[in-house]
Structures are given as structure tokens and as C-alpha cells.
């Protein structure tokens, strides 16, 4: 891949994403406002969970996005290692903080839901443990991006770690499942889904997803601009030398 073609792609990305971004921002806003209406005045409390069910309109969405982010980053990691595509590097870097933020939200809202529902903020079950590890992985990846100055090298290192993590996360899930079934009975209550809860749930899910797309595109654009600044500065340094 030549230097000229690799630069052409981010340029095309900049023009496309610039057109898409206003649309995704508006979609995110509309869906979330509608979702919030249905989440509070527009839906009754659950007969089993009571009012706490309203947390179900922010918790699974955050968790879903954290996982989606990791999957996207793993795909981008392949893009970095196999095709050495600069946009894949940019995506990896831009997505990590978003993943960390949504994983954190997934954990916090989950714990706030757990206390009134199960009577405890935390259980060491497969889902929670592997999700906690997912959060730590995001933090580790952010740390790599912060530590390694050369963006190309950082991208390849982060890619390796992301891919090994992609193998590891299911294993952790599985191993903790075995661990907890041998140690303690699984006391997790599965909530029934009532038709009332579907509209806010999916409206919020759609809203969160578009929000995610918007923030991701914004951060990727920032990163591309940052790389341009960097290369301009390096070129001017080179010209002086």
C-alpha cells in the first residue's frame, strides 16, 4: 500500500463522516428523548421488579455498546495487523475511551439495579466478572495508547492485546461460570419482558447506538486531524534539519 493511497482513504472518510454526523446526532437525540418519555411517564412499573425496571432502559444499552465497541475494536485490530489500514488504527484509538465509558456505565447501573433486586451490589458470577475484566481491558488499552508515542506501533501493540483479549473473554466467562456453579447456586433472577417495556428499551437502544456512532465518528475525525497536525509538525522539523 503506497503512502499516497493510504492518505487518500482518511481524506474520503473525513468527507463522508462530515455529512453523516449531523444526521446521527439528531437521530440519537430524538430516539433518546422519546425513550426517556416512555421510560418514565409512558410506562407502568413492573409487577415484579417495581419501579426499578426503569433502570432496564439504561443498563442493557450501555452493556450492549461496551461489547459492540470491543467487537468493533477486535475487527479493527485485524485490520491493523493484516491489512495495515490506517483507518483501523484510528478506529482502535478512538473507540477505547468510549468502550471504557459504556463499560463503566454498564457496571454502575448494573450494581444499582442489583442492590434493590438481588439485595447485593455485586456477585462474582460469569457475566459480571467477565464484564469487569472487559472494563479493565479497555483501561489497559487506553494506557497503551497513552504510553507508546509512535501511533503505528501503539496500534499494532493494542491490536495484539485486543485480539488475545477476544480469545480470553469467552474463556473467562466460561471458567467463572463453572467456578460459581461449583461454589454457589446461581441466584440471578431473570426478569420477564412485558410488552410495556419493549418500546422504551428499544428506543433507548437505538438512541444509544446512534450516540455511539456519533461519538466514535467525532473522535475518529479528531484523531485524523491530530495525525495531520503531527505530520505537518514533523515535516517542518525535517525541513529545518
Amino acid at each position, binding site marked *: 500500500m503506497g503512502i499516497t493511497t493510504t492518505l487518500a482513504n482518511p481524506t474520503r472518510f473525513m468527507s463522508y463522516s462530515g455529512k453523516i454526523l449531523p444526521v446521527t446526532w439528531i437521530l440519537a437525540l430524538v430516539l433518546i428523548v422519546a425513550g426517556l418519555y416512555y421510560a418514565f411517564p409512558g410506562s407502568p412499573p413492573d409487577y415484579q421488579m417495581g419501579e426499578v425496571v426503569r433502570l432496564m432502559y439504561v443498563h442493557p444499552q450501555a452493556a450492549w455498546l461496551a461489547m459492540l465497541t470491543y467487537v468493533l475494536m477486535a475487527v479493527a485490530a485485524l485490520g491493523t495487523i493484516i491489512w495495515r489500514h490506517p483507518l483501523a488504527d484510528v478506529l482502535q484509538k478512538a473507540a477505547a475511551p468510549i468502550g471504557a465509558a459504556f463499560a463503566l456505565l454498564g457496571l454502575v447501573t448494573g450494581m444499582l439495579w442489583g442492590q434493590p433486586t438481588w439485595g447485593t451490589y455485586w456477585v462474582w458470577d460469569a457475566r459480571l466478572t467477565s464484564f469487569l475484566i472487559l472494563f479493565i481491558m479497555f483501561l489497559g488499552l487506553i*494506557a497503551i495508547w497513552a504510553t*507508546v508515542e*509512535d501511533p503505528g506501533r501503539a496500534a*499494532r*501493540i493494542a491490536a495484539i492485546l485486543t485480539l488475545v483479549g477476544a480469545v480470553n473473554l469467552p474463556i473467562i466467562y466460561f*471458567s467463572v461460570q*463453572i467456578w460459581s456453579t461449583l461454589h454457589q447456586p446461581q441466584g440471578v433472577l431473570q426478569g420477564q419482558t412485558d410488552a410495556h417495556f419493549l418500546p422504551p428499551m428499544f428506543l433507548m437502544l437505538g438512541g444509544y447506538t446512534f450516540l455511539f456512532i456519533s461519538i466514535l465518528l467525532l473522535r475518529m475525525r479528531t484523531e485524523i486531524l491530530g495525525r495531520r497536525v503531527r505530520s505537518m509538525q514533523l515535516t517542518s522539523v525535517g525541513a529545518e534539519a
Partner: protein
Amino acid sequence: MKAFLAIVRQTITVSFRSGGGPLVGLIFFLSVVIVVPFGVGPDLNLLSRIGPAIIWIGALLATLLGLDRLFQDDRDDGSLDQLQMAGLPLEFVVLAKAAGHWIATGLPLVIAAPVFGLFLNLSTAAMGVLVLTLLVGTPALTLIGVIGGALMVAIRRGGMLVAVLVLPFAIPVLIFGVLAVSAIVVGPADSFGLPFMLLCATTLLAIVVGPVAGAGAIRAGRE
């Protein structure tokens, strides 16, 4: 094959001559085993129940001890360049370094584990199983640590960061290892098979993933 064995041997020799070989790891292992009872109290029943976990955690930490230098020293003295041109695929170089490191530091831990088990009031049967699980499981820990060692070379100033990045990967090994021993210590004894098989499977997977990821990390860090 000759090259592979030469790397294994050289790693062991260097570990003995400049790193004190198994001694540092063993002392560290010993101190973990000695410190924990002071934390949880001298109740021998409790100690024998959590003993396997203490020994496994000690083994995990001791195994990761010297791994940060494993490739960094090679990079600093230029050996890493030569190893990459030796004709052996980098994955096998990483595997050979891991094997050498395990023989020099992991194997002594396995052999010493029964002695440490005495301090923790483990039964003879439990010690036998403990040694068996450590023998199967510590290579996985070394191979996971090798990924961290290779990342050290790539990141350059990693320090604690690498340890934090690598520890999550050791969780399954720890879980399966401790579960298998607990099956003998607290029972039921028939729940030994499943975690032990899974421990073997994890080690086999680590034999593949460790060298591939380690070689990938070294390549990623090329400058």
C-alpha cells in the same frame, strides 16, 4: 530443533548465572506462603481450606517475576536481532524462551510446592494433586507471562502496566487449578475431573496463543 534446544539451554544458563535462577522465585513464593497465615490467622482448618489458593497465587506471582526482563535483555544486548535472523520462526523462538524460563523458575516451584504445603496443613493427597495441577498449569502462566514480556519490549517503558494487562489472562488458569485441588481438599472428590481437564485445555491453548501473540508483540514493537 537444534536451534530450539540451544535457545532453551541458553535461557536456563543465563537465568542461573545472572538472575540467580530459581532462587529468587522460590524465596518470593515462600514469602507469599508465609505472609498469608499472618493475615488470615493461625486456624489450621481454614488454612488447609484456602491453602491451594495461597499456593496458586504465590506461584502466579513468582512465575511472572522475571518475565519482564526475558526479552528486554535480549533487545538491549542485540540478541533479539540475531534471534530474528536465526532461521527459526519467531513463534518458536518465543516458545523456546518460555520453555527455558519455565524450567529455570516454574519447575522448581512445582517441586517445592509440597514443602510449602506443609505450612498450610495440606493432606498428602491434596499435595499430590497440587503438584500435578501446578505441573500442568504453571506452563500456561509462563506462556501468558511471555506475552507480557514481549509487550514490555514493544511498549518499552511498561513496568507495572504490563503486569496489569497480563493478569486477567491468568484468571482461568487460577480458577481451574484451585478448583481441581479444592475438589480433593473440601470435596466432592468427583468434581476433580472437569476443572483438571479444563486446566489441561487452557495450557494447550496457551502453548498456541502465547508464542503467536508474543511473536506478534515483538514484531509490533520493531523500530
